[in-house]
């Protein structure tokens, strides 16, 4: 008997009146697990019953513990007729099965009824006693931790990343069983909820077993979805990344451990006279965020690495591969060592069937190169699943798609796919399966058990801000036509002109300016058809849809003068008579990639003057928009190339010759770059009305209102000083197309307006949070019925401190310096002077700097470190006044990470906190966010995965405020139930929250509606960083930072 589950029913409150005569309720509770049921006594005539029951004990297999939810039903006792159900609570006890998660579930749970919604609350206590089970052939996988978070969770470190795990289970959908005709909607809904809960549990257990087989102990980036295939069944499927995680027992130690690694290289650098070279070498290998740095500290070889770096006289932190001594010529594929490494990784990956990773951000040094987005879709006809125990067809379908993805990745010269996800869209019996990810080359570091030799560490540690952009494929054998240039950062390796990815922006990436949400929207009509004909029609349309989405994305990207997309997510939704395509991504300007050319319009038909005029007008508009956008997003890539060439300062270059053998080639590179320069404007040909329409739609995207930014990635490059104010929200809109005979263009416009208006409304709603950024904006579209388009958005609005945007940038500069020169107090003056100089005279200093340093991303960019190591402090100030002639961009350790960690000066954050701590409320405040972190806080414990599925139905739609009233209260109820579960686990936040499904169906004529919602996330406990700082074992780096900011302000 491997486990004992104990439950105690304490009390209820706010129960509904069940007896009209007395206006009271005689409530009792049934507690059910598996096939065992217990009952409490009836607590007569009260809306706030105090049952205070005994402990109900269930002796069960741990397999059941994983699969089954604890089911609590509150009923009203009726002497003469059947007892009426008030509502139910399902409690997933999985979090109690892992020793590191929650130990007890205790709290108030909303009593939920699928017809009436929340009806009062019940206070429950649940505990589990697990016995040691030595059975090797067990079917359970208790103890495997699950995380929705698509990065290594914050208080763990990754020992190993094993790779892809997937599983799916199928069943008949209770809603389509014959019995559904005779049972009540409530019974049917409950059967469905229970079934999906069971299937989820089973799925999780099976995936857990796979993880144990692989030798892992956790699944990260766990994504579970269900497909309602109607008649043909119900599929619950999940993918994830198996890992071996180590809990960081003391969260402070790593911080101290990382410190030498952060600071000592610069110390060594100083001694080696090291920061002086590298004209045109971009600064800033952005260090990982502090949390992540801590998390992986044990992998950052600290001392040994520094020593090595100084002895080899190479600038590891700046130019990744030069230190390898291969002298590999620029742009060519890899030196021998790299090849070797790649081989090793290759073999490590080849052992896996699918080298896929659901992670979107990575431990430093893990992601080496990114090839581009790979995606595959296939259209299938659904048929009844005959044998639920052998869901072979569905497995085969996904297998096929994954193979395709794998081969795409290979074509891009990549051995792995990261940021991988899968989705479906179902309409009647047609199902589109989609998978997408980003082809990438990974370091073997987290994939092999063997001890790593120094060389490995070597390369692993070097993840400068440009390496991931370098093409992984063979330039002579390119998989697709692309314009390659030399990397604008290191000038050694080739980079593509644009880069699309599905992952988050790597923390170390060099970005110029800020990013923004870019969406391509497309609507295509389709003839109504049946069966195979329908499937064929859809698959014929798909390539066009994808092509057009891609073109739109590209145009919009150019219009914003950006050159890379992150977090790209393309959703294609199929309806009876139309296909919807929505691509969302976050556009940024990667410093390493070439500046995008403008958009040039070419009229094809040589014709009259008015036409020419029209075209030139449009061209002007486009040019103006580009200019405006550049300003808006602060994209001022320095025109470095010419200046480097014409640089009148010989000194640094001489030195660089001294120190680096490649300097000559790098100069050549610069020249090459120049020739590539600006000539390649993107040409849009207007040869038909479609194109005109395209351009129109291009220009009609309303700019975000002042004070707002938006992105669909975790965070926005260029914003660091988040306050703790955050607001997660879900917004849903359904539009009815009243004119059925719309053209493609008409439809497009409708769809486009729909999304734009929704965004506008969001900005208006959240205006009190300005300046703020909508992060992780996640759009989902659906075609629930013939003439309906449904758009749902979940995102989090996070405020930041505008006034500090610039200062903080400067402060971070200060702090960088501080890092480099920790001991000498006199030198503290320097950074202050520097920041004063650059702010008062930004043009001059920027120019002065760029003369020397090349791609210096404006004084504002926080990732820049100006540090001169040639001379000591006394002369620095003087030199500065001479227009920074002698400032060279040297070794860079940005501290932007630390900024993120504690975005506010202490006083401010404290005041914010005090504002938020109100007395009197008995309900725990639970924050929810789709991000994996909460700014200004530290997650100290993961309590388990939240994966909840609810159905709500009404037969009195009008009385509940129509469809909007119905859905509004349902979403609020779902939030409430998520919060209650988290609070009962002892948590105060949900991170990586995701509303995976929101299926809404209505029948206004019958006054009915039904909605299904599936949400997931990780329940966590967080503490404010300011509170952490107060605790005695201060991390070294944090104290350094505090002092520096103290001095700096």
């Amino acid at each position, binding site marked *: 008997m491997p486990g004992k589950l104990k439950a105690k029913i304490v009390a209820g409150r706010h129960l509904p009146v069940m007896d009209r005569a007395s206006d009271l309720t005689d409530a009792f509770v049934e507690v059910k697990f598996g096939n065992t049921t217990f009952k409490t006594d009836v607590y007569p005539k009260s809306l706030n019953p105090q049952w205070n029951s005994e402990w109900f004990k269930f002796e069960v297999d741990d397999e059941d513990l994983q699969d089954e939810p604890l089911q609590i039903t509150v009923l009203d006792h009726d002497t003469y007729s059947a007892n009426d159900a008030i509502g139910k609570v399902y409690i997933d006890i999985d979090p109690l099965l892992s020793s590191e998660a929650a130990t007890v579930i205790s709290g108030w749970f909303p009593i939920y009824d699928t017809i009436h919604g929340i009806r009062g609350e019940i206070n429950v206590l649940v505990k589990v006693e697990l016995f040691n089970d030595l059975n090797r052939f067990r079917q359970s996988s208790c103890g495997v931790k699950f995380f929705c978070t698509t990065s290594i969770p914050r208080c763990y470190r990754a020992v190993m990343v094993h790779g892809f795990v997937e599983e799916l289970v199928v069943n008949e959908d209770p809603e389509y069983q014959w019995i559904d005709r005779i049972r009540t909607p409530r019974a049917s809904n409950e059967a469905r909820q229970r079934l999906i809960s069971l299937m989820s549990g089973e799925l999780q257990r099976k995936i857990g077993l796979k993880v144990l087989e692989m030798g892992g102990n956790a699944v990260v980036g766990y994504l579970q979805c269900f497909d309602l295939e109607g008649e043909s069944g119900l599929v619950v499927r999940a993918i994830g990344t198996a890992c071996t995680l180590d809990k960081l027992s003391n969260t402070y130690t790593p911080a101290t451990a990382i410190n030498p690694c952060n600071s000592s290289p610069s110390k060594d650098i100083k001694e080696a006279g090291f920061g002086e070279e590298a004209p045109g070498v971009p600064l800033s290998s952005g260090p990982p965020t502090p949390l992540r740095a801590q998390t992986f500290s044990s992998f950052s070889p600290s001392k040994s690495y520094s020593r090595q770096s100084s002895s080899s006289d190479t600038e590891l932190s700046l130019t990744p591969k030069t230190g390898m001594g291969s002298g590999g010529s620029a742009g060519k594929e890899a030196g021998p060592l790299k090849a070797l490494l790649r081989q090793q990784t290759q073999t490590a990956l080849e052992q896996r069937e699918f080298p896929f990773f659901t992670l979107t951000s990575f431990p430093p040094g893990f992601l080496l190169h990114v090839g581009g987005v790979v995606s595959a879709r296939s259209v299938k006809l659904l048929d009844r699943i005959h044998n639920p125990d052998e869901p072979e067809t569905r497995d085969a379908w996904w297998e096929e798609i994954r193979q395709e993805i794998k081969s795409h990745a290979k074509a891009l010269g990549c051995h792995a796919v990261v940021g991988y996800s899968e989705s479906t869209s179902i309409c009647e019996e047609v199902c589109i399966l989609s998978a997408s990810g980003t082809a990438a080359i990974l370091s073997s570091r987290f994939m092999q058990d063997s001890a790593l030799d120094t060389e490995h560490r070597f390369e692993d540690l070097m993840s400068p801000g440009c390496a991931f952009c370098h093409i992984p494929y063979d330039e002579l054998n390119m998989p697709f036509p692309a314009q390659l240039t030399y990397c604008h950062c290191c000038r050694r390796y080739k980079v593509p002109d644009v880069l699309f990815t599905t992952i988050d922006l790597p923390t170390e990436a060099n970005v110029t300016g800020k990013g923004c949400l870019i969406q391509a929207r497309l609507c295509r009509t389709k003839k109504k058809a049946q069966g195979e004909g329908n499937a064929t029609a859809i698959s014929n349309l798909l390539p066009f849809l994808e092509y057009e989405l891609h073109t739109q994305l590209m145009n919009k990207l150019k219009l914003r003068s950006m050159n890379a997309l992150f977090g790209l997510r393309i959703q294609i939704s199929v309806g009876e008579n139309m296909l919807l395509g929505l691509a969302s991504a976050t556009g940024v300007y990667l410093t390493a990639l070439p500046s995008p050319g403008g958009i040039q319009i070419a009229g094809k038909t040589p014709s009259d003057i008015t036409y020419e005029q029209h075209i030139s007008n449009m061209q002007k508009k486009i040019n103006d928009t580009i200019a405006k956008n550049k300003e808006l997003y602060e994209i001022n890539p320095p025109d470095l190339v010419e200046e480097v060439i014409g640089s009148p300062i010989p000194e640094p270059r001489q030195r660089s010759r001294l120190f680096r053998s490649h300097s000559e080639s790098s100069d050549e590179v610069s020249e090459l770059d120049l020739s590539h320069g600006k000539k390649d404007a993107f040409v849009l040909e207007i040869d038909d009305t479609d194109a005109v329409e395209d351009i129109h739609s291009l220009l009609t995207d309303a700019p975000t209102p002042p004070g707002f930014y938006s992105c669909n990635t975790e965070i926005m490059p260029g914003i660091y000083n988040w306050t703790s104010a955050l607001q997660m929200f879900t917004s849903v809109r359904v539009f009815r197309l009243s004119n059925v005979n719309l053209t493609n263009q008409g439809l497009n416009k409708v769809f486009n307006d729909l999304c734009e208006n929704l965004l506008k*409304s969001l900005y208006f709603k959240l205006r009190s949070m300005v300046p703020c950024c909508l992060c992780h904006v996640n759009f989902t579209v659906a075609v629930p019925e013939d003439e309906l388009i449904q758009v749902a958005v979940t995102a989090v609005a996070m405020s930041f401190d505008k006034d500090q945007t610039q200062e903080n940038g400067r402060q971070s500069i200060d702090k960088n310096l501080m890092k480099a020169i920790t001991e000498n107090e006199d030198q503290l003056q320097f950074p202050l002077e520097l920041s004063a100089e650059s702010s008062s005279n930004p043009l001059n200093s920027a120019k002065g700097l760029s003369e020397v340093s090349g791609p210096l991303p404006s004084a504002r960019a926080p990732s820049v470190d100006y540090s001169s190591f040639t001379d000591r402090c006394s002369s620095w100030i003087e030199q500065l006044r001479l227009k920074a002639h002698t400032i060279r961009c040297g070794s860079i350790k940005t501290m932007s990470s630390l900024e993120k960690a504690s975005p506010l000066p202490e006083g401010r954050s404290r005041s914010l906190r005090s504002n938020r701590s109100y007395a009197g409320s008995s309900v725990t405040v639970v924050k929810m966010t789709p991000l994996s972190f909460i700014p200004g806080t530290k997650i100290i414990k993961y309590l388990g995965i939240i994966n909840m599925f609810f159905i709500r139905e009404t037969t009195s739609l009008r009385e509940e405020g129509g469809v909007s009233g119905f859905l509004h209260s349902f*979403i*609020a109820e779902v939030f409430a139930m998520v919060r209650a579960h988290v609070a009962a686990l002892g948590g105060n936040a949900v991170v990586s929250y995701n509303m995976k499904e929101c299926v809404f169906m209505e029948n206004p004529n019958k006054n009915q509606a039904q909605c299904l919602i599936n949400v997931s996330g990780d329940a966590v406990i967080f503490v404010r960083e300011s509170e952490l700082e107060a605790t005695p074992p201060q991390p070294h780096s944090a104290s350094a930072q505090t002092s520096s900011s103290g001095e700096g302000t």
Partner: protein
Amino acid sequence: MRRMSMELDVFVGNTTIIDEEVYQLWLDGHSVSDAVRMRLESDALSECEASGEVLHSDTMDQYRTFQMCERLLHCPSKLANQLLFQIPAHRQAMLIERYYEFDHTFAREVLGKKLSKGTKKDLDDISLKTGVALKSCRRQFDNFKRVFKVVEELKGPLVENVQHHFLLSDSLARDYAAVVFFANSRFETGKRKLQYLSFQDFAFCAGQLISYWTVGAVDNMMEDMDVDLEKEFLHDLKDLKVLVNDKDMLDQHKSLVCYQLKGKIKAFSEMEANFKNLSRALINIASKLTNTKDVRDLFIDLVEKFIEPCRSDKWTVGDLTLFLTHYTSTAHTLEMFRFQILWERYMGVIKSCILKMYHD
């Protein structure tokens, strides 16, 4: 041509967003379209450049939120421990306070009336008369009724009961106490002669009555209710008749007052001439208070029997203050007068009520 129509449009935040401005529009009983129009016209939003469409969506959303919250606002203590809406405590307090705030012009009309269905039917007229939207009138009336129902049977101090059960601010709780008190005792406030009195005037008087004439006022054990005047006290008031029935005492009282006031008030001669009438008026009011009917007429009696004569003699407020002060204090020096405490308790309230009510 509109090619599409919005079928459904919702926004739900993890923390419930509440726009105070829209909340007020909702409370004031404006329809969604009115509210949108008013918001469009207001300056506050001009910088947002919000279109009518955006405002309509936002207003609908807010109205829906308020409607969903309304159920909870009916029992404010529930708002703090409900799970459906995550609302910071200070916002909860704002929601409650604003919901229970009422228009004094409206309250003035309802004051002293039975909070019943019958009165509710008159709300149309009240709405017309006061200019308060009917919807808002209904809310305010229901609030009165709800508060009344809850505290009616409760023991202990009225104001505290209101505050405790409805989590209102002190001043609002006092106003409610007044409304409840008036509704319970059904004081006459509607007569033409009383029309000049505002809600605040009555609320003040109610405060006085609650503080000094109820059981709770003397008995700190809070055993009894605060809503009713103390029967025993009212009965004892009959004893004060001696002041006018005993001829000697009346004369002595008059001369003492005249002695004190000579040269100090302008209306001295009028006072001297009228003293016996005025004193008789006040004592008669006191002695009749055992009758429920006469309790109801307390204010009209005060106005007719005392305030109007003074007003017609053009007493100033100062005159009146001095008169009442000395009228009260000199009674203590009367040798044969044994009801000092009773007298003080009666006159203290009467004096402050009269002074509050003595204006145009």
